[in-house]
């Protein structure tokens, strides 16, 4: 226990941004030769910070090295050593190192990325860890790394020896409002993600990861970001990782029915039908009128039924088909013009031997989509089976 008037040395004191800025200025001022600094701030604030520092320290020659893409060879040393006016530099600001970090961060403990995976080290960090003597001996100036909270954490864990040589770490933590705004900017449309390149998707995931771990992040926004990340990974065809992301989202916000629904779709894409069905059921338990979930649940159940049928397990197959049928009925009860559901309902009824009702269901499908030729065809087949041709 700490008595009144005594200092609790186990408690943190938080520096305000003005204090942190002054400490950074003093560090640059007092450094002679090599030193390493890590500055945590959001990308939008970097240019302002550099401008301000340059204005306050006019005698120092400052330069920026902005890494706009992944360093394929992982060799940052080389990039710095070959800068055009290398000899004049007093302070070099380096940003964009995150682009060379592994975007495939597995979901880890406590909703954080599992940076300490022991099977991989991003190449750039492996190099940095071994290059630190060469940095010290060959770069007689201040190197200031601009990084997100995520980037600093990554380096602290996976280039610990390089990180250990820092002369200072300065944090400019964005406020609630800024974090909210930056988070909003990362919400996107799935259809658009589909048109992106793999690199674009990975870049966006890194941006999401960076803002996800900001101190002022709210749980609600965090859940939304995990959901976005899941959607981007789905668009990229990485269903396993997408599922893990959706799971993070529902861990934070258990009633996030869109996340349950999308998780179901990703599971379904991997052929994990039972798990997909359970996930759709979570979605409709939260939002009973979510007809897409009822419909997809029906599709997954029908698929299960058919594969059981193929294995000769008639009884189990019929049970699944009936459940599927009920699921389609839920869907059309909510959204009567859902022709796919009417059509699939028809298929299910037909498989269960209810030809009359199947025909009626195909007719409903045709009513909402007159050019639905499969429905016309199946309807004809039913008549054929009933010997009602002509």
């Amino acid at each position, binding site marked *: 226990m700490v008595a009144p008037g005594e*200092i609790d*040395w*186990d*408690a*943190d*004191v*938080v*520096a305000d941004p003005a*204090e942190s800025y*002054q*400490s950074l200025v*003093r*560090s640059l*001022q*007092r*450094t*002679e*030769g*090599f*030193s*390493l600094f890590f500055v945590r701030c959001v990308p939008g604030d970097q240019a302002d910070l550099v401008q301000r520092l340059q204005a306050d320290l006019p005698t120092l020659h400052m330069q920026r090295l902005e890494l706009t893409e992944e360093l394929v*060879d*992982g060799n940052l*040393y080389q990039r710095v050593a070959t800068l055009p006016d290398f000899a004049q530099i007093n302070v070099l600001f380096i940003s964009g190192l995150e682009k060379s970090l592994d975007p495939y961060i597995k979901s*880890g*403990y*406590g909703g*954080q990325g*599992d940076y*300490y995976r*022991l*099977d*991989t*080290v991003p*190449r750039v*960090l*492996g*190099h940095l*860890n*071994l*290059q*630190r*003597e*060469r940095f*010290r001996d060959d770069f007689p100036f201040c190197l200031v790394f601009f990084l997100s909270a995520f980037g*600093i*954490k990554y380096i*602290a*864990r*996976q280039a*610990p*020896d390089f*990180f*250990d*040589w*820092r*002369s*200072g*770490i300065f*944090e400019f933590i964005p406020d609630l409002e800024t974090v909210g705004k930056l988070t909003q900017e990362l919400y996107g449309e799935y259809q658009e993600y589909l048109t992106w390149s793999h690199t674009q998707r990975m870049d966006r995931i890194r941006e999401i990861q960076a803002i996800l771990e900001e101190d002022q992040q709210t749980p609600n926004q965090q859940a939304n970001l995990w959901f976005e990340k899941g959607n981007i990974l789905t668009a990229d065809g990485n269903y396993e990782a997408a599922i893990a992301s959706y799971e993070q989202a529902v861990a934070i916000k258990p009633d996030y029915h869109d996340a349950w629904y999308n998780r179901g779709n990703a599971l379904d894409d991997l052929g994990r039908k039972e798990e997909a069905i359970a996930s759709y059921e979570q979605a409709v338990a939260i939002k009973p009128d979510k007809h897409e979930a009822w419909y997809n649940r029906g599709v997954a159940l029908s698929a299960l039924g058919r594969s059981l049928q193929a294995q000769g397990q008639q009884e189990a197959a019929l049970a699944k088909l009936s459940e599927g049928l009920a699921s389609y009925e839920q869907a059309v009860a909510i959204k009567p013009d859902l022709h796919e559901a009417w059509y699939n309902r028809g298929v299910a009824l037909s498989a269960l031997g209810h030809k009359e009702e199947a025909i009626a269901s195909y007719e409903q499908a045709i009513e909402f989509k007159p050019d639905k030729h499969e429905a016309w065809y199946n309807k004809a087949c039913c008549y054929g089976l009933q010997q009602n041709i002509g």
Partner: protein
Amino acid sequence: MTASPDFWKKLYTAFDPFRPLPANDPAWVDCTSVRGEEDILAGLGLEIARSEKVTCQLYAGHRGAGKSTELLRLQDDLQRQGFQVVYFAADDGDLEPENTEYSDILLACARQLISALRSPASQDGKFRAWVDRLLRDLRDLGVTELSLDELSYETPETPLGKVSTTIKTNVSKQQVIRRQVEQQAESLIDILNEFIGSALGDRQPQELVLIVDNLDRIIERYDGENQQSNYEQIFVNHSDQLRAFNCHVIYTVPISLAYSVHLTAMEERYKPVEVLPMIMLKTPQGEITETGMAKLKELIRQRFRFAQSGVELEAAFETAEALNKLCEMSGGHVRNLMNLMKAALQNTRELPISTRSVQRAISELRDTYRKVIDGHEWDALVRVSQEKLITENDDQFRSLLFRRCILEYRYIDAEGAAQVWHDVHPLVRGLDGFKRALDRHERGASRSE
């Protein structure tokens, strides 16, 4: 008093965390008594001096504890005794950054030995022949990236360097080349030993010492659950080759390897790993020891002197408590002490250093520990803080040692025996996760009483 910019530059630079002290540096402080009498000259050094045969020893310690400083001291001491010492710090010119393997180390050692001992021309041909054979075999295996014609034989180590470079740059052929180097390792070591013999002339192989620093820089990785780590693959599976050089060798290894079940099973091969412990500033019962505190202050005081600041240590801090806490929060870890001092100085416009500046420095460093601890590790940390011991061979503890969340201390007990104990880093105690886990643990303990 307003200090000059030059004063600040000198003082600030004196606490740079990235310069091991050269041997005989006046800023060096003898901490043997507070490191449980661990002294590299008496340990590794005496073993080399007394041994009739060549030795192979492993040296471990927490990152930033002062290993390189100590190894440079050892080099100096051995040289004074008449030994020839080849010291090299492996870097990314030697090691593949993502997955270092034994062959990388072999090639690096060979290269360093050759260039340090200056090749007598008669031996060059043998290294050349070895490389030629390697390349022929590799060509047969479909590796055409290394061609004989392109190799320059300016110095005999150049082709070996080329092989290392190709391993690093040619990811697809990396494994093939490595397997081949490993297959031919024995003959390379033979040539190397012959070379050492002729380079030494009349002197004995026991008069040559190779110190390989920085091998603890390789990032530990596991290829799967319950698999050996890359370190174990190197130091356990290749122990014969690592010990085969005809000279004394010291390899640095990470502290986590000292607690590897695979390695401790090999004690007849390596002597027990020599570990450089933290400066002990508290007893296992948690009482501050004046001797340890005095050493930490001495470390700071020497740097104030080095900076010719004319400032007395006690006068540099607003309160004695601030200085004491700064020392205490380092956990007896030298680089952390430097980190804290450096941060306290940059938070300070004019001396003395205020209490708030020290508090900020402590909070900043504490935050770096927050960044490396995962949510499931708090209970293990609480256990260490209470039992003051780690469970040997447990990967979780080894990993926490590696990340310095758990520190190793050593003292000599009343019977004269060395006692090793562990504690969580003092900064960990201030983290919310730790406080919550401790609280849970204590409530659980009182309920069961």
